[in-house]
């Protein structure tokens, strides 16, 4: 790169906006290749900037809501998460008012149940997890020097799902219809009408299942973003630590959320159709729900904690004025925690009467996870000790976070010991522990992140004075509120009681807790005020206001929509500190992709290990279609809650149609030319299919999550096999038990045939035999529909009735799962056929069929495991 300093005569320094440049002047399609431009010529740069600004501009007026760019979607996502958080915070304060005095009647028992259930549910599902996705959607592309994430419309779809599902769940309390069973919804309390009348549990289940869709969408987006959209040269050892954490956490979501989706399916089938999965009288077992919930629920704690710690890993080096000490140790900690956190789930079930040796395994893993967790804390302390620390409001919140989290971690080590847990289980001691961990490990770091990153998003620094007031109110208020809970818990106060009698020593700790909660709330309101207060007159913060070293601080003030002016070549961990003249070179467009010659939104795709440039990826722009898809899909879930089946089916058809239109118009677009000059003499292809394309990775990752949900259902089958004296049960004397062998094997054969048809269609298409490929796709549609029918026909024809016993219910669930996936596979093949007939899929442009063939690998595996489980396994035992 050159040593020429930044030339400030370029247009953007004159504050021009998109509206000032007429479309005709932009000259789209007639611009010379980037490598031939003289970046030192201000006119060249002005033209480039006008084009980039036009291409990436946010839509105007009401069309603003059709935006899909990560900056807009991330901002909505963050704001919505915080709104839900404030709502849940008010619920928390209501609980503290109710508990401030013995025998209080501020809330009724039933309403109190709704309040604490929603408090936990909203904080976990609508704040703690979504705020990770929200912040990552904003920050990740900036940190990776990318213009956008690879699937901007998927982010937008996820956001609308989250908003609709969240409003639905939260809104229920205004009708007195909110769930009352606690945030983990243990059956049979929640499954049986006599204990839980009304729609509460259905709202919880369907609303949250819908939001889980959004989380998995975000996970796909973030994994592909981290692995494939890094700037050239950013090898794995140079990635910002935040990206490591995002990778680990998104991977965890992929294995943690699907078991809950599987559990939700079983739960909802019991609620809606009386299938007895959790009813012991008919062979079911409520413990299965606890397993599935906590296989999700415990990793979720780390899914919440790690991204917040990731913010610390970005903030601490900036204020310690040095690179992080022990980069590899952070990678160890992130990856190690990610794995070990899946071996902890039973520590929520220590009091359920499992054999001590089972508890022992989970107790051991719960102690082991303290090792990587502590490694991170020591790395941060070492970085602070080795640097020259600048004291600031973000650092104040960082130190508060570390102090609070360490206390929560220590009580965590205590409750990880089964004998101690038996004393403290379901008491306020646990409430204190989990709040110390979650607020210290998540909320305080997130507020630190708000103070740290606000100048980048809002253009101005937040007030130091208000920040300090907010911190001390929050820190003192938090400890006043939650420290006494350890005490009230050890006295014996159970969690979730709506009131308590006088004279058993609980008045004082509860009163102190309630006072502390309001002090804490005052602190948080101060933060909110600081963010929202009008500050038109205040000057903008200077660019890179904290003098940080990572790429996100390239962001211009006020912000430009294009992300980065040019996609830089990275050769260090802290380019702004370690690469000479870096910001000026980026701004002068001396790196890759300094222009939008054809008027298209583009970002760069690179290789996984060493980030070598692979492709110039065209990403789609604004659309309302994602919103429609989310609205219709949301309607499916909401209408199903109220058993309005006809409308549910109609909206389901609309939802599928909306998704198909979205895919048809916005994915696998054929570029007008094969490759493009992206500057510095580099030519990159515009179209890639197969393992090098982002779409293939997205399919692979989505199907990994899908397979996890399927494995959870299979786990359910074998769980019942393990806990039942005889399984399948000898229930129908003289009749065939189970789905038989014939029809499942017929189905397996048909699935295998359609799998072959999909593979051959892919291969013949790429060889140019388009006619054969079309025949194979059409044949595959028929075969897979027939296979789906055959797999259902087995249990139907042998007369398995799912409501009488858990065995037929489990068989039916697996058969239905497989049939649904088979139908989806048929739809995909039909879609490919239509694309081929419409000329949108050709032998060289074959993303669609390559990805569908990948889907069919998973589909074939699903069919094989289903048939082996429901038809062949009973023969073997």
């Amino acid at each position, binding site marked *: 790169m050159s040593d020429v300093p930044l030339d400030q005569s370029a247009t953007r320094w004159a504050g021009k906006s998109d509206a000032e440049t007429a479309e005709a002047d932009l000259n789209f399609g007639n611009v010379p290749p980037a490598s031939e431009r003289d970046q030192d010529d201000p006119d060249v740069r002005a033209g480039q900037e006008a084009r980039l600004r036009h291409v990436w501009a946010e839509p105007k007026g009401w069309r603003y809501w059709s935006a899909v760019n990560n900056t807009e979607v991330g901002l909505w996502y963050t704001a919505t998460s915080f709104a839900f958080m404030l709502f849940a915070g008010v619920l928390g304060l209501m609980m503290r008012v109710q508990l401030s005095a013995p025998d209080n009647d501020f809330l009724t028992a039933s309403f109190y149940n709704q309040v604490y259930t929603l408090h936990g549910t909203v904080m976990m599902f609508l704040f703690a997890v979504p705020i990770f996705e929200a912040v990552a959607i904003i920050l990740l592309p900036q940190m990776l020097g990318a213009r956008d994430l690879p699937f901007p419309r998927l982010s937008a779809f996820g956001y609308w799902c989250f908003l609709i599902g969240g409003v639905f769940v939260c809104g229920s309390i205004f009708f007195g219809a909110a769930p009352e069973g606690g945030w983990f919804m243990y059956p049979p309390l929640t499954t049986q009408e006599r204990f839980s009348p009304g729609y509460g549990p259905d709202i919880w289940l369907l609303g949250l299942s819908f939001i889980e869709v959004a989380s998995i969408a975000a996970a796909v987006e973030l994994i592909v973003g981290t692995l494939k959209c890094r700037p050239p040269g950013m090898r794995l*050892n140079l990635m910002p630590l935040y990206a490591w954490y995002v990778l680990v956490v998104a991977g965890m979501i992929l294995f943690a959320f699907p078991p809950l989706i599987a559990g939700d399916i079983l739960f909802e089938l019991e609620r809606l159709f009386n299938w007895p999965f959790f009813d012991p009288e008919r062979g079911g077992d409520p413990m299965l729900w606890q397993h599935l919930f906590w296989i999700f629920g415990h990793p979720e704690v780390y899914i919440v904690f790690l991204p917040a710690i990731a913010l610390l890993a970005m903030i601490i080096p900036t204020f310690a004025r040095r*690179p992080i000490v022990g980069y*590899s140790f952070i990678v160890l900690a992130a990856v*190690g925690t990610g794995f*070990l956190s899946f071996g902890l789930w039973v520590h929520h079930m220590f009091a359920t009467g499992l054999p001590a040796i089972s508890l*022992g*395994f989970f107790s*051991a893993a719960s102690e082991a996870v303290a090792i990587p967790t502590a490694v991170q804390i020591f790395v941060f302390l070492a970085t602070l000790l080795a640097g020259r620390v600048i004291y600031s409001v973000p650092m104040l919140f960082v130190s508060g976070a570390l102090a609070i989290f360490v206390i929560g971690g220590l009580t965590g080590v205590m409750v990880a010991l089964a004998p101690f847990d038996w004393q403290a289980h379901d008491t306020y001691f646990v409430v204190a522990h989990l709040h110390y961990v979650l607020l210290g490990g998540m909320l305080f770091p997130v507020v630190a992140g708000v103070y740290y990153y606000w100048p980048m998003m809002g253009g101005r620094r937040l007030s130091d004075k208000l920040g300090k007031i907010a911190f001390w109110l929050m820190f003192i208020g938090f400890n006043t509120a939650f420290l006494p809970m350890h005490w009230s818990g050890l006295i014996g106060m159970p969690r979730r009681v709506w009131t308590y009698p006088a004279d058993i020593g609980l008045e004082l700790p509860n009163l102190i807790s309630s006072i502390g909660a309001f002090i804490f709330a005052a602190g948080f309101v101060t933060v909110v005020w600081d963010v929202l207060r009008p500050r038109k007159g205040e000057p903008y913060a200077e660019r890179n206001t904290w003098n940080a070293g990572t790429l996100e601080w390239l962001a211009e003030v006020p912000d430009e929509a294009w992300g980065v002016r040019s996609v830089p070549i990275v050769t260090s961990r802290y380019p702004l500190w370690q690469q000479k003249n870096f910001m000026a070179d980026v701004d002068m467009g001396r790196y890759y992709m300094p222009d939008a010659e054809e008027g298209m939104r583009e970002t760069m795709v690179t290789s996984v290990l060493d980030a070598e440039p692979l492709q110039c990826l065209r990403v789609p722009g604004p659309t309302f279609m994602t919103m429609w898809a989310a609205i219709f899909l949301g309607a499916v879930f909401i209408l199903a809650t109220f058993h309005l089946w006809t409308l549910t089916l109609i909206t389901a058809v609309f939802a599928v149609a909306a998704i198909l239109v979205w895919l048809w118009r916005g994915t696998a677009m054929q570029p007008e030319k094969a490759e493009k000059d992206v500057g510095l003499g580099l030519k990159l292809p515009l179209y890639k299919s197969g393992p090098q394309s982002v779409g293939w990775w997205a399919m692979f990752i989505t199907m990994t999550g899908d397979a996890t949900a399927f494995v959870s259902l299979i786990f359910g089958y074998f769980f019942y096999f393990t*806990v039942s004296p005889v399984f399948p049960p000898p229930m129908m004397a003289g009749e065939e038990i189970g789905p038989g062998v014939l029809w499942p094997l017929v189905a397996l054969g048909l699935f295998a045939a359609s799998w072959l048809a999909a593979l051959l269609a892919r291969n013949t298409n790429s060889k140019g035999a388009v006619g054969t490929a079309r025949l194979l796709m059409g044949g595959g549609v028929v075969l897979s529909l027939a296979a789906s029918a055959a797999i259902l026909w087995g249990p139907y024809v042998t007369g398995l009735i799912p409501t009488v016993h858990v065995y037929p219910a489990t068989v039916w669930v697996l058969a239905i799962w497989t049939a649904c996936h088979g139908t989806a596979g048929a739809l995909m093949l039909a879609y490919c056929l239509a694309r081929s007939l419409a000329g949108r899929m050709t032998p060289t442009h074959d993303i669609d069929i390559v990805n569908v063939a990948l889907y069919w690998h998973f589909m074939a595996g699903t069919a094989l495991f289903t048939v082996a489980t429901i038809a062949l396994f009973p023969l073997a035992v």
Partner: protein
Amino acid sequence: MAIRNKTRDNLWTLITTPTIWAVHFVLSYGSVAYGCAPNENIFQGIGGYRIFVGGLTVVALGAIGFLFFRALGEWRRNGGRIPHEEDSVEVRERFLEFSTVLLAGLSFIAVLYTALPAAMMVDCR
């Protein structure tokens, strides 16, 4: 992908050792839970399952130890040096080797932790 005693590291080799921990964990817990189910006779001995877990532990520790020493050896022989922040394919490889060493160490300890209950408990109580 061993090429003449040299591993080309990637994200999959990085997570091999914690994956071994996970498999060991699932099989240990799964086998004992199966052995004790439906948990009606709590004084039922689990000797066979303990031997199984013991054998599994030896295999897991052996595999993790092998990967640990191989990654460590390659890292040392090729002049690995923290903090691995240079811009080259070699340094990226060293970084992955070193991170593999760290994760192998953690996985080794975690497998030992998992084996402890089986070493100490004799029945389904």
